[in-house]
């Protein structure tokens, strides 16, 4: 069962002055410095490959997969879906700048009018609704394929997510979510991917959080399909014994906002494959 986020930004705003507040820029510098000192031999940019930046044998197998990765089918499907006109004759291209080509790295963005974080998935469904189409299932194959295609046209673009004054509350909420312990195992995102980043969890190597948001959507061999970042959030939460939230809930969008901001300066490398 998942509940939509009801935590009001107001509450966050009230709590904020209670502890020393770092600006997003300071957070980013400290975040990067943490991983640089933890992995002195690894270029920050290489963390975009997750655990495969940390282990040679795993990297070799992964590169073999990337040589002809299964997400290529999703990219083709996504392109066909993207170009399929709506009933009103318009298409997705009409809703985005540069007709939707090479723009994925601009998301998520803070919409100052709506006062909320807008992810590309949300923008795609709003585009559909604006043109009289029913929204897509956020956990379905179609949205993942569209995202795969849009990521593919955006490969190589550098992240430079902005946090305007009005977006600070959402950013802070996402940051808090990242560091809050959850579930029966009492783990935060940061427990595994910051504190223990690079360490082993049973047979797995824990990836660093710098680079966590650069490569979505991702074909996970475990899922046997391409899934979105929020699919992974749900899975991560469930893995520590917490109930996942609804995909595209405010809290997950805020988390994506924080995580993607922490990837600023890195290059978009989605779609990708992971085990």
């Amino acid at each position, binding site marked *: 069962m998942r509940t939509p986020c009801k935590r009001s930004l107001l509450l966050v705003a009230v709590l904020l002055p209670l502890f020393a507040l770092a600006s997003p820029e300071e957070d980013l510098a400290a975040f990067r410095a943490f991983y640089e000192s933890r992995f002195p031999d690894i270029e920050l940019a290489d963390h975009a490959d997750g655990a495969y930046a940390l282990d040679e044998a795993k990297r070799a197998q992964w590169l073999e997969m990337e040589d002809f990765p*299964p997400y*290529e*089918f999703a990219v083709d*499907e996504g392109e*066909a879906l993207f170009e399929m006109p709506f009933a009103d004759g318009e298409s997705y291209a009409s809703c985005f700048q540069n007709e939707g080509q090479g723009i994925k790295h601009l998301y998520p963005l803070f919409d100052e009018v709506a006062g909320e974080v807008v992810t590309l998935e949300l923008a795609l469904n709003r585009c559909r609704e604006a043109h009289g189409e029913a929204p897509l299932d956020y956990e379905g194959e179609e949205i993942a394929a569209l995202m795969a295609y849009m990521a593919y046209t955006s490969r190589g673009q550098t992240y430079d997510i902005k946090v305007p004054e009005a977006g600070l509350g959402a950013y802070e909420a996402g940051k808090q979510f990242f560091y809050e312990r959850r579930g029966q195992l009492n783990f935060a995102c940061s427990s595994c991917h910051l504190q223990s980043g690079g360490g082993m969890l049973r047979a797995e190597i824990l990836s660093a959080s710098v680079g966590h948001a650069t490569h979505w959507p991702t074909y996970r061999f475990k899922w*046997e399909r391409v899934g979105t970042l929020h699919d992974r959030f749900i899975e991560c939460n469930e893995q520590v014994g917490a109930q996942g939230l609804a995909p595209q809930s405010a809290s997950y969008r805020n988390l994506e906002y924080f995580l993607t901001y922490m990837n600023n300066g890195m290059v978009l490398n989605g779609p990708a494959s992971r085990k």
Partner: protein
Amino acid sequence: MAADIKLRGKIKDGVAEIKSLMPHPMETGTRREESGDVVPAHYIEEVVCQHNGENVLRAEWGPSISKNPYFAFSVRNVSPGDIISVRWTDNLGESGSGELVLK
């Protein structure tokens, strides 16, 4: 949405290195749905590769080839403009194909 076999290839010293990816569920016939129902076996049994219409390689597979099979092979005595084609047939009689013009 039908997806054909994806093919890539490059010529090196007269030998073409071909890589292919075939969209197929490759069900073993032992996997169960959450409902408990067994998913029936559905897998590629045969793959035939041709060079300008001549058979150069024929593979037989069991269900232990991974989902969305990847298959790479090489062909000798090729020139730019030659055509490589790959076609699979599965245990239900379905088939799929792909073609590549070598550069």
